[in-house]
Structures are given as structure tokens and as C-alpha cells.
């Protein structure tokens, strides 16, 4: 789970996930084009590639070789660990330990 939080702790990596959520899959070039053109993020291609490696280690991105091209997919499955660990509470219920 440490990898997951580390992966999410960077704004550029969160924007990469946003862009993959909007359009999936994408090549490295397309991701770089979107980061520069839509978000003004001037990271080098190599830096974006390293961000993708971190996201892939956390299981949030999968890369797939399709013919001669390499595509990157979003995988939100690891995020379910967060909801399982801290499940949303029913807002109508009184907070635990708050009763006199």
C-alpha cells in the first residue's frame, strides 16, 4: 500500500491518471502532449516515463504492447484498498465514541 500512496503523492502523476481516466489507452507521446498542451506541465518525456513506472509499480497503470506500439491503461483496482480501509460512514449515524 506504501507504493500506492507514494504514487498518488505527486501532482503530475495525479494529472496522468486524470488524462488516462478521460482517454484510455494512450501512448507515452500522447500523454506528454496532453500534459504540455492542457496542463502546462513541462516535464521531459523521460520524467513522464519515470512517473509511469511509479504508477505501474503501484498497480494504477498497466502497459500493454499492441503490435509495435506500447499503450498505457488506467487501473483503479488498487484504490479500492483505500475505501476498504476507511469505509465511508453513514452521515446520519452519530460518530462512534461521541455518546456521553
Amino acid at each position, binding site marked *: 500500500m506504501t507504493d500506492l500512496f507514494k504514487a498518488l503523492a505527486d501532482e503530475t502523476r495525479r494529472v496522468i491518471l486524470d488524462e488516462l481516466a478521460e482517454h484510455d489507452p494512450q*501512448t*507515452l*507521446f*500522447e500523454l506528454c*502532449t496532453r500534459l*504540455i*498542451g492542457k496542463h502546462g506541465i513541462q516535464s521531459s*518525456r523521460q520524467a513522464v516515463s519515470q512517473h509511469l513506472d511509479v504508477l505501474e509499480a503501484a498497480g494504477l497503470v498497466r502497459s500493454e504492447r499492441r503490435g*509495435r506500439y506500447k499503450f498505457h491503461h488506467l487501473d483503479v483496482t488498487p484504490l479500492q484498498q483505500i475505501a476498504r480501509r476507511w469505509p465511508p460512514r453513514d452521515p446520519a449515524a452519530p460518530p462512534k465514541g461521541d455518546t456521553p
Partner: protein
Amino acid sequence: MRITTTSVFVDDQQKALDFYTGTLGFQLASDFPAGEHRWITVVAPDAPDGTQLVLEPSDHPAVPPFKDALVADGIPFASFGVDDVNAEYERLRALGVTFVQEPVSSGPFTAAVLDDTCGNLIQIASMAS
């Protein structure tokens, strides 16, 4: 000094000539024997005096790994201007052209990336006026 020609490395010169003229819509500018290969150039039909694109053989051993690495990451080797990327995307897709990037707009700039069937990715791009 002027840029009279620029080039792409193509896996098969005849196949490339067919694609760059028959599909993309450039017109033949020159075609003559050059050693074991041919010197082939194409040019935009609405700018016949413009920069010519040389369809150069990729037989130097350094070329295939270079091309493969670019293609894997979706990086176009060249970028050509079109009036309307979306219209050109639809036209070329109907002709069976493979796109690795659908049109993406960021501000006034729109671009898409296609496979030239000869080992390269080519970007088509437009700036909204």
C-alpha cells in the same frame, strides 16, 4: 539557404510511394534510380514548389532500432500540416489508416498520429485560425 527536401526512412520504397501518394494525397515529384534503390520525392499538390519529402530506404543498421523505439512510445517522426485534423482523421480512417492517437486538442492546436505502414508514425496537425 532553404529547406528543399526533408526525409523519412521507409521500410519499402514502393509501398511508401503508394501510401504517401495514394492514401495521404501527396504527389510524385521525382523518381529515378539511385544505386540499388530509388530517389523518390513527393510534394503537396497545392504547394508543388514547396519542400519535398524524400522516401529514403531504412537499410542502415542503425535505422530499424531507432524507428522501433520511436514507434513504441508513439512518437511521430514527422509532422504535416492539415486544415482540419478531425476531417482528415475521418477521411484517412475510412481508407483503413491506423491511428495510434485520435485528434487531441489543446488550445488552438489539434493533432493526431497515424502509422505510415512503412515503419513510422506521422503527426497531422492544425492551428485554429
